[in-house]
């Protein structure tokens, strides 16, 4: 618990915003479907009605309640993205670490496989795959989407994880454990992987981000099960129902905005993880204020008391934490003469 609190404090402000946003979405995902005011699939005569007291998000062209669809959509989309994240990240860890550790031909082959799947454009391939499955018994529900997204979602992480695993492998402490005779999988499990936690976390977040974007896009095109009320499907029906032309913005703005905000939250989270692990990014943000004046990384080192614009000696003094160097400057440890020399 304490470690989490410490972690929280170290996160930059934007990352904290991301975590909070994510939390809100998770909340919606968990309780949303329990509190839907209406059955999302039920049609009513109240067609394409603007938001009102009865329908907070308005209705669709067939009179369905947009809010109810939205609440379910958040859960379905997050669920799907989460599973893809788990499966694809697991795959990328397995492949990446195996490639790094097995070395030789296995590494060459796995790397080739990874790079090939990285460079082949994913979305068109997904479209082809789902083009076949769509509308058939095999294409129902979320499973086929989870399946194909996971199939194509691992290469990115695998590449990064392999690189990191390679560099860890060459580090001295691993050589040391090898000398003590520990078996490979133990080394991997207990020494290598714990060192890659932040990388795996970042990879997971990235994969979830990709899954959200891809699943929404595929649903929008109509290649996923249109009976599942995911956010993408809402957009699909909105497009089909000419929401634009009839001006029913309440139909497509909530799901679209939700996807954008969800994506933003994930990116912010990732930035936070990035900054935690890359000291330079962190320094760029934190170490730029001295005496409430902005100091760029590339500026000359600021000088206390310099007349050329570093205003506010008092401000500068106050900005120093704990031990005040100004106080000390006046207090010698026995040499009153020296104290007099200073301003």
């Amino acid at each position, binding site marked *: 618990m304490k470690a989490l609190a410490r972690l929280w404090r170290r996160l930059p402000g934007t990352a904290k915003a991301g975590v909070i946003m994510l939390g809100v979405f998770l909340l919606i995902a968990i309780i949303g479907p329990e509190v839907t005011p209406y059955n999302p699939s039920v049609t009513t005569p109240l067609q394409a009605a603007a938001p009102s007291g009865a329908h907070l998000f308005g209705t669709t062209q067939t009179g369905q309640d947009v809010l109810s669809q939205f609440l379910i959509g958040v859960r379905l989309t997050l669920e799907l993205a989460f599973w893809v994240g788990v499966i694809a990240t697991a795959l990328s860890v397995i492949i990446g670490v195996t490639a790094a550790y097995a070395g030789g031909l296995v590494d060459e082959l796995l790397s080739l496989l990874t790079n090939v799947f990285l460079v082949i454009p994913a979305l068109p391939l997904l479209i082809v795959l789902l083009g076949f499955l769509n509308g058939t018994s095999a294409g129902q529900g979320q499973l086929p989407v989870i399946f194909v997204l996971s199939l194509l979602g691992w290469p990115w992480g695998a590449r990064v994880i392999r690189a990191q695993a390679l560099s860890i492998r060459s580090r001295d402490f691993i050589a040391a454990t090898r000398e003590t005779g520990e078996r490979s999988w133990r080394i991997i499990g207990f020494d290598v992987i714990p060192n890659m936690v932040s990388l795996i976390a970042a990879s997971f977040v990235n994969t979830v981000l990709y899954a959200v974007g891809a699943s929404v896009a595929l649903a929008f095109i109509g290649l996923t099960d249109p009976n599942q009320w995911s956010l993408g499907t809402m957009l699909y029906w909105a497009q089909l129902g000419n929401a634009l032309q009839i001006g029913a913005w309440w139909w497509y703005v909530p799901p679209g905005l939700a996807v954008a905000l969800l994506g933003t939250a994930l990116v912010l989270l990732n930035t936070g993880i990035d900054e935690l692990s890359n000291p330079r990014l962190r*320094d760029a943000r934190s*170490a730029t204020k001295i005496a409430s004046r902005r100091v760029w990384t590339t500026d000359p*080192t600021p*000088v206390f008391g310099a007349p*050329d614009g570093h205003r506010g000696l008092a401000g500068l003094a106050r900005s120093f934490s704990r031990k005040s*160097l100004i106080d000390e400057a006046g207090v010698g440890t*026995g040499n009153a003469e020296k104290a007099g020399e200073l301003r």
Partner: protein
Amino acid sequence: MSPVLDIKDLSVAYQTPGGDVRAASHVNLTINKGEVVGLCGESGSGKSTLAYGACRLLRPPAVITSGSVLYSGARTGTVMPVDILRVPPHDLRAIRWRDVAIVFQSAMNALNPVIRVRDQIIDGMEAHLRLSKDEAHEKAARLLDLVGIGRERLRSYPHELSGGMRQRVMIAMALAADPEIVIMDEPTTALDVVVQRDILAQIVELKDTLGFSVLFITHDMSLLLELCDRIAVMYAGRIVELGSAADLKNAPAHPYTQGLLRSFPSLHGARRELTGIPGTPPDLRDPPRGCPFIPRCGFARPGCAQVDMSLIPVRGSRSPLHVTACPFVTHEGAVDAAPEQETTAPEGALS
């Protein structure tokens, strides 16, 4: 004759969330024309901080909290001395390289990997001197000659050169604008001994020919003893001893210096046991009162906690310029009771 560079009471701190790290405290150091001054100390002693801080090259969160760096060079048209710490950025840029140049420690990292050697030497020139393209090119070629590299290397990229060659390029680059002072930050640490020898000999030759001063920073005391006119020893951000190379070699006047000298073998003289200096340097965030060397000093005594670390002439020494921060040591290296004026602290000066 005023010194070319006069560092007065320079203090540098790093502002961290855990407190301010005083990397350098109240350092006084002068460099005279044509002199080679060595700056010696272990990692974290503040030697690089001092040198880069004097040029305001330290990155955030570094702050210079006191002092001035007065430069009195041969430049005409400017009122000397000039305080490098207080000139506006435009003038600072003009002083850099033209008056004070730096040879960095790791040449591979300090050279721009994507532009040719020729361009890197020339841009340092063009920023400060008025030269035609041909003149600049010829000068760059001559610089390479000076450091012992073939002219055809002008067209090379840094990664195409060996470690020793890269370091020589760095030196040539530093000399491009005819500086008065060249600061050399561990220029040979990463090289093997043979190359090291060559390059050091080259530096001395260049210095004699071109007449610049050198501030040579290293942790290798043996190098400095051979190379320098004067040597300053730093510990925990403070200068603890300053004197000529002969002074330090024959009569080191600070327990830390003595420790340093004992920790490497000499080719001459009787074989003796090598001793290191036990312990670790202090945490510079919260330095204790008095001398920072107390925990590791074999001669520590109660009076040490009242020492204010100002540099005083070594007792009994014939060289007036040999100063030390330890009031208890004599020029024979003996550490004994201090003379009267040091031990009693004035009332009320301590909080």
